């Protein structure tokens, strides 16, 4: 049976249409505006392994983000474990992930601009970077905010989705790496050496 759309649905789609019509030209300008970051001078990571799909700039930003997630202290962090190289490998196989990273970097730069009047996330102080990244801790986003994220970045809730994905992957990569094991005092995979000292306490 055909169902007539409700008044609420009609209003929602009318609003979306108007938003799209009004935002469309502005969107093109904004995308062009933010595109300049992709061609900014690369920040060399100094790794012997090449980054293949991310631009040098994207790789530098993502490298920094992983460093905020697991920082270096008296023990190595995500940067020393070169988590960015694994992210790059994943992005080689997953276009959607590549897009999420790319738009996430754009979102970070946009935040740097709108909140701190800086062109690039990389130009911010550590406190400012952390303040922006912490926005990705919350899944709450208004309806219009989600629409905006989808239209502009291609991903709804860009802050949350980008940061949570990078955080989860950073954990997964770092704690599967000997440097990550060193931080917590883990000896490595269960097999095949096992734990023959299992019954001995320190």
């Amino acid at each position, binding site marked *: 049976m055909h169902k007539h759309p409700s008044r609420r649905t009609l209003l929602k789609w009318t609003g979306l249409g108007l938003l799209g019509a009004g935002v469309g030209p502005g969107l093109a300008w904004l995308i062009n505006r933010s595109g300049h970051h992709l061609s900014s001078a690369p920040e060399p990571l100094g790794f012997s392994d090449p980054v293949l799909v991310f631009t040098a700039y994207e790789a530098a930003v993502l490298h920094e983000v992983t460093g905020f997630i697991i920082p270096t202290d008296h023990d190595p962090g995500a940067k020393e474990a070169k988590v960015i190289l694994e992210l790059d490998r994943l992005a080689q196989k997953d276009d959607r992930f590549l897009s999420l990273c790319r738009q996430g970097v754009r979102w970070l730069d946009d935040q740097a601009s709108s909140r701190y009047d800086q062109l690039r996330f990389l130009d911010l102080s550590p406190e400012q970077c952390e303040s922006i990244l912490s926005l990705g801790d919350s899944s709450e986003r208004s309806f219009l905010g989600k629409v905006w994220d989808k239209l502009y970045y291609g991903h709804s809730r860009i802050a949350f989705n980008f940061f949570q994905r990078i955080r989860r992957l950073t954990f997964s990569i770092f*704690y599967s790496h000997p440097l990550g094991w060193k931080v917590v005092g883990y000896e490595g995979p269960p097999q095949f050496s096992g734990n*023959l000292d299992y019954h001995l306490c320190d």
Partner: protein
Amino acid sequence: MAAEEVDVCVIGSGAGGGVAAYALATAGFSIVVLEAGPRFDPALYALDETEWESAAKLLKIPAGNSQNFTSGPPQPLDPRYEHLRAWSQLGRFASPTHRSPPQIFRVKGVGGCTLHYQGEAHRFSPHGFVSRSELGYADDWPIRYEDLEPYYERMERLLGVAGDHRNPHKPPRLPFPNPPHFLSCATQRVKQGFDRLGLTLWPNSLAILSRPKGDRPPCNYCNGCERGCMTGAKSSMDVTLIPQAEATGRVRVISNAMARDIPLDKMGKAKGVTYFDRSGVEHFQPAKLVVLAAGALESPRLLLHATSNRFSDGLANRSGLVGRNFMETLVYFNIALFEDPIHSYKGTQIDARCWDFNQSDPQRAFRGGVVFGVSALNLLGPLSYTKHLVRGWGLQHKQRMRELFGRVIHLFAVGEHLPHPDNRITLDEEARDSFGIPLPKVTVALSQNELDMLDFMRSQARAILGAAGVKEILGEISAYDTDYISHMSGTCRMGTDPQSSVVNEFCQSHDVPNLFITDASCFVTEGGGDSPSLTIQALALRASDYIAAQAKKGNL
């Protein structure tokens, strides 16, 4: 081309089916085993890889995540037991108003749930068989401990069970085939709490080798039992009795074979099994006798689906009890942090148990038994800590990981879920699998008895941990609001009266004489919180002896 008739078609290759195939093959029968899942390759379990904890690796391991079922309406929570709600430092994760739908941890694959079980090999205590007549609750089994004892002993030898025969809470017995494993450092630490309260934390009896057996090495204490044992030290069916059965030359295991029906001949006897192969092509395997051992969820599903003029309510279901009296796992977990490094990820999964409360006690507020245990469970590598305990990011996250890793242990309890006919498996005609077979629907609720039991588990666990000097409790999970099921039983219960049971004391259908059910379906009670595998295996061994004896007499 029609398949050649065999003596026995066994449905399922886990604890019940694997043992039946082995025992009947060594008795000279020709056998086809139909296994719904694949044959896993232990070399692919990835426990030796740096990324062994990553999600991608879960695809090739028997991780027990088959959720192909539906569930009945969720039970509203009883607010009087609000304190039993699951919590962790990461927040609440269950509904505040209703019990969560069940999650059932099981494996479809050659070896069945033994692929991911933790190797516990418990004999039920004698009181577990006579709870009605001696303790006044639930129902009696048609057999006694003494009937099963020789089969327990045979199974322990076949599996190479390790344990300490001096356990004061179990009947006197001969030494186990293998010496007990040492208690892990973590368990020794928790044991201090048991000791201070006058409770006995005893080395667990485990079907995990403490000495070499044939070409199988002893355990090297990687603690990865639940992901499948790479070395073969755990006596799962795929590395023990199934290869031995196949070596007789009389057993053929067909993997990815989903049984659909057990057709009957004109005399009302099973004439074989209809099954689908992986590509959905239907086959018929003729057999003189059928052993159904698909587990307490799938066995009643198959019977209820196999309707005919003779059995309009499901095969072998004249009693109307197929699917009824479903018993789940009544569990409570306390996630406990200790100050000192206790290397909690090292050892076997459950190396110790406390049987002090295994027997029902009229002084307590509930009927039924409870067994406590210590385990790392899923907290093995550092990545598991980030998933379950330590979120956040930055230096705070890193420091918390240092504080927690290797210092967190689960003190848990398993209680006896009493049988109730309204807790049951039915068919969900609205939901079907890829073969068009209706999915099993689990309808289960807890009574006040179970809630009181959970309350007891919680208070005891907190007391034990307090006495052990726990630094911090990081969370608690109980069956009150979260329904994690790994042990299931009761859905084709055994008994002497065909009106009130599905199979007899030899697991033989009252209604179809050449149909036997050798899995936890035929349990009457849950043995006071003990793990079911060894009892399933002992029952299957006993049923196989009976089949061989009756066949020799021409009675089947």
